[in-house]
């Protein structure tokens, strides 16, 4: 006879499709939460009040995406963890966001460059997710794709305004692109988890989205009189929990209140 616990032990030895999907969704959830956390750092510090508003709007959407993705992941991985368990009780090494999303805000141009790279990627990925067989996941993809489409317009518009604005803004925008571009390749990485899920058509693999991403961001960047960087190195590690040194501070801040009140309800 097979008990429930034996089944769980078995599936963790050879990851089940559900466990793989949980891992995959956690990555996307971490991307959204960590980027949202970074954007929160701009609020009350933006160059225009309109941008305090726009960036908080985007951060709010991203936190919303993380909540849905964490909840789904907790249900699939068999642990029953809640959205808050994922956000507030994991350690730095357990987060699997891409390094791009945790890069410090830098000046406004660095943030715009990071937004450009991420929103075009997220937009393509969520559109593809909207076509996946799981109805709940497909519904999430469709909703998130709609929201991210606005984030993309916001990033595109700023790349253009800064690229074609003043010599200083063009210089800063180019520097912002150079700063974040080495971190873009990781977004499209495939590993065994993704390969297994993509093989069964459960979720889209990000790798095939890359040419279209390249085409779209190139159009925006060159349209703004700027150059798409061709970095000589690419950073990786976030997906396997190997983060930047600054990430410790980000997680520490994120979890500080929650951890100060063990057993607290919020």
């Amino acid at each position: 006879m097979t008990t429930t616990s034996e089944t769980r032990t078995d599936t963790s030895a050879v990851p089940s499709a559900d466990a793989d999907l949980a891992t995959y969704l956690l990555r996307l959830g971490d991307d959204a939460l960590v980027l949202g956390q970074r954007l929160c750092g701009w609020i009350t510090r933006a160059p225009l009040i309109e941008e305090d508003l726009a960036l908080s709007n985007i951060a709010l959407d991203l936190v919303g995406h993380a909540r849905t993705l964490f909840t789904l992941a907790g249900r699939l991985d068999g642990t029953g963890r809640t959205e808050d368990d994922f956000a507030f009780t994991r350690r730095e090494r357990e987060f699997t966001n891409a390094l791009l999303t945790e890069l410090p805000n830098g000046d406004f141009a660095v943030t715009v460059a990071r937004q450009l790279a991420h929103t075009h990627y997220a937009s393509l990925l969520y559109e593809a997710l909207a076509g996946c067989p799981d109805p709940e996941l497909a519904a999430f993809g469709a909703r998130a794709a709609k929201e991210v489409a606005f984030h993309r317009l916001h990033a595109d518009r700023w790349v253009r305004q800064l690229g074609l604005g003043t010599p200083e803004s063009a210089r800063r925008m180019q520097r912002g692109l150079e700063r974040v571009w080495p971190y873009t390749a990781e977004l499209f990485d495939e590993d065994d988890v993704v390969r297994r899920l993509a093989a069964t058509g459960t979720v889209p693999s990000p790798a095939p989205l890359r040419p279209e991403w390249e085409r779209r961001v190139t159009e925006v960047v060159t349209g703004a009189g700027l150059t798409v960087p061709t970095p000589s190195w690419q950073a990786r590690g976030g997906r396997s929990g190997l983060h930047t040194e600054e990430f410790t501070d980000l997680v520490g801040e994120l979890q500080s209140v929650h951890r100060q009140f063990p057993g607290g309800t919020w």
Partner: protein
Amino acid sequence: MTAPTAVTHGTGPAPGAAEDELLAHFDALIAEGETIEPRDWMPDGYRRMLTRQIAQHAHSEIIGMQPEGAWLTRAPSLHRKSVLIAKVQDEAGHGLYLYSAAETLGVDRADLLDALHHGRQRASATFNHPALTWADTGAIAWLTDGAAVINQAPLCRTSYGPYARAMRRVCQEEAFHVRQGYDLMRALCEGTPEQKAMAQDAVDRWWLPAVALMFGPPDTEAGGSDARTAALGAAVSRRAMAWGIKRHTNDELRQRFVDSCVPQAERLGLTLPDPAIRWNEERGHYDFTPIDWDTYRTALGEETHWARRRIDHRRAAHEDGAWVREAAAAYAAREEAAGPPAGPGADVPRQTQEERA
């Protein structure tokens, strides 16, 4: 144009009419409960009072983002994080509505911000207090926004049309913030003893700022400890009420706030830090300690640590972002030179009188 039976817009004296005739028409509009619109003639004092009040209100929204904004990255649950982001976002939106309302009086947002940054205009001194713990975000929303709703609800019927319309949107959202603040405090009060202690500590620190500073100085002798201050406040309030800018005295609204908070605090199991609070059967209101305005004002001058921090934070953001605004302006000029603007929102018309309904 046919002669109107009642005083309404667009029926007044022709531009260039004698000032007493214009003033009579203005007074008649106020008496009829009509709104004054940007193109209507208005006394200079009315324009000045409104500009100052709306600007101070807009500045308070923008500065008021800071104490709560500092906790966005530390909110202890994702639900609370979402709520707080949405609230701070609303405040930025309120600032924008109100700066737009002020602009209909012939001032410029950039000049108003400059006045804030250089101490010529002020935000509410309520926010010259630090938000020291997570519970402060709840106390601010419950008490400070609660005071704002009571203070501002009558402004939805204020005599200046653009201000009244802005306030209707602001009040709707503020009322939501108060409920969220109360809910946050309730969760803490129902939580661990440590959480409840944090909630009480926050209320201890935010009660007086809300009671004293959100309603302005005492303007009746009953509410003030100093007859001269009260008399001065009363004179300003009388003027503002005659013009229909204000509808109630500061002390009347302050009393209304105390009356609403006491039972809420009792339900939460929190103690409001004023031993004089007790129900007065005869008055039908709660008694509370009169605000010692002079002492309080001295402690909250512009030359205090937190007043400086708020303005410095705001000014630093503005200065750090100068290159971005310059780029946006240069880009807009370039687009304009290149041809007619394309796309939705490229040419947003200014609010017109016709929109006042």
